[in-house]
């Protein structure tokens, strides 16, 4: 069964057609890559799924439920988590508190419980601390738990965003250029982390410009150009698709 089904999504900004009738499915438990030249509308597709933008037409069905028009935090609650292309961490807070923000939607204690420190509230705080530390450990940032987010290196900030997204206990995680700004070694570690995420039963959809990474870990690729899907299939097929080669290179050079 497909975990995510995008059906005829279209989004315009003013006169610009950013996403044009995009439809594709993401199978449960898979790692899917969304690729395409700059400005093809990849991030816009992400924003349509996560409720940051509302499509003009079309549906984004998650787990049998159309999430179009829902508020972003409700969508996160349903089990869709994301990272941002332009890193959006809580800069003045430390790594641990950044991850704790992801735990928020799985917690219950409110204002009164917090003021009066009820037994339940204390137990919950203890529990999420464990969970947040576990997620930090998962991405390899456990030792940096008390470092302020904007003091971390670029690559580590990307990992911290992933940890924060994982803390929301998602079924489906959307990574927007996770390897952006990473060096080779960091990218290698990232590949392991993404595979480990899938092994936890979380379905992954990612945008990435690093083709070697995409070819290595994605089982399925969707290629976008000028807001429309021009090809779809496994990496081997995509690599040899003439339309994709042309979209990427505008010529006959073989870079893939």
């Amino acid at each position, binding site marked *: 069964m497909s975990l995510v089904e995008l059906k005829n999504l279209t989004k315009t900004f003013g006169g610009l057609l950013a996403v044009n009738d995009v439809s594709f499915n993401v199978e449960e438990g898979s790692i899917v890559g969304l690729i395409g030249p700059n400005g093809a509308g990849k991030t816009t597709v992400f924003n349509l799924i996560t409720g940051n933008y509302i499509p003009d037409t079309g549906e984004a069905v998650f787990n049998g439920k159309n999430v179009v028009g829902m508020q972003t935090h409700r969508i996160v609650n349903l089990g869709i988590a994301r990272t941002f292309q332009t890193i959006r961490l809580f800069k*003045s807070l430390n790594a*641990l508190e950044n991850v*704790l923000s992801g735990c928020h939607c799985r917690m219950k204690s409110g204002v009164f419980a917090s003021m009066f420190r009820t037994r339940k509230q204390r137990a919950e705080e203890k529990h999420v601390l464990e969970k947040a530390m576990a997620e930090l450990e998962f991405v390899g940032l456990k030792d940096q738990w008390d470092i302020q987010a904007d003091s971390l290196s670029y690559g580590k900030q990307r990992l911290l965003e992933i940890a924060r997204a994982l803390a929301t206990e998602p079924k489906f995680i959307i990574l927007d250029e996770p390897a952006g700004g990473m060096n080779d070694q960091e990218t290698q570690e990232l590949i392991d982390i993404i595979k480990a995420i899938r092994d936890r039963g979380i379905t992954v959809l990612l945008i990435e410009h690093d083709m070697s990474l995409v070819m290595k870990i994605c089982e399925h690729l969707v290629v976008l150009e000028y807001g429309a899907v021009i090809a779809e299939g496994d990496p081997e097929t995509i690599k040899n698709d003439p339309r994709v080669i042309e979209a990427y290179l505008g010529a006959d050079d073989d870079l893939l």
Partner: protein
Amino acid sequence: MMIRKQDILCLAGAAVFACSPLVLDAYWTDVLNNIGLYAILALSLNIILGQCGLFQMGHAAFFAIGAYTSAILNTMFDIPLLWTMPLAGILAGIFGLIVARPIIHLRGDYLLIVTIGIVEIIRIALINDVGGLTGGANGIFGIDRPMLFGLKIKRPYQFFYLIWGFCAVTIFLFHRLENSRFGRALNYIKDDDVAAEGSGIDISKYKLIAFVIGAFWAGMVGTIFAGKMKIISPESFSFWESVLLFTIVILGGMGSIRGVLLGAFLIIGLPEVFRDFASARMLIFGAAMVAMMIFRTQGLLPPLPRKYDVSRFFSKAEGEQS
């Protein structure tokens, strides 16, 4: 160990402070009372402005609604003043909810302007004697003194214990609130609201709750204010009161309880110490605000990072290493 030492220092300081009415005359005790009132008001504003980063410039409106609620209930229906406190808070809270709801999504500077507008509309409404309840420009007089355990509170030192007792409770509760899921959520929103929403936080809900708590508390301070002054009139709740509170939070340190307390002492207390420059105090505060933004944006005493006990997550690893 460190924490315990700090706690002891805090308690010792509080104990010394609690003795101050014994050595101060009525005038200076009253100055401390004013500082206390502003401190509580600024702490309640701090939830909205300091913790959540919402530029609320109309806090005097909530304060006014609390004070008028108590004054009306007390003078017209003879309800003992302190009994009206919860209702004063609730009405101010409901008002906060109603006005904040449509404007909560506005960007910082727009929100600032709108809240200024709201506090002015409230003041104009009070002057125009809405519903014949508020006494117009003269306000309401003959408000009873608060009674606590059969004791009538009327002398400055008695008010000192009432006000600073309430302030202590406020600090205690707000400190806990700050170190909780709720407090963290407000900080996430302040830092980056798009990321907060993307992390699953219902940002409008939390902004509204921040407004309601701030308004509720300001309303309760209104009750004490009414009992202390015995007369309240619209001019007690002008735009300038809001500016003063705003300045206390910004100069003291947004989101920092100790910063807000320091701010209240500096901004309300200093002009009393240097009486010669009292008329120039706002001039100096204005210049200080500009200088603060340029040289020390975070305020005099910025918030300390929250403490988390994570030692248990490391003990095992260290054991393996050794």
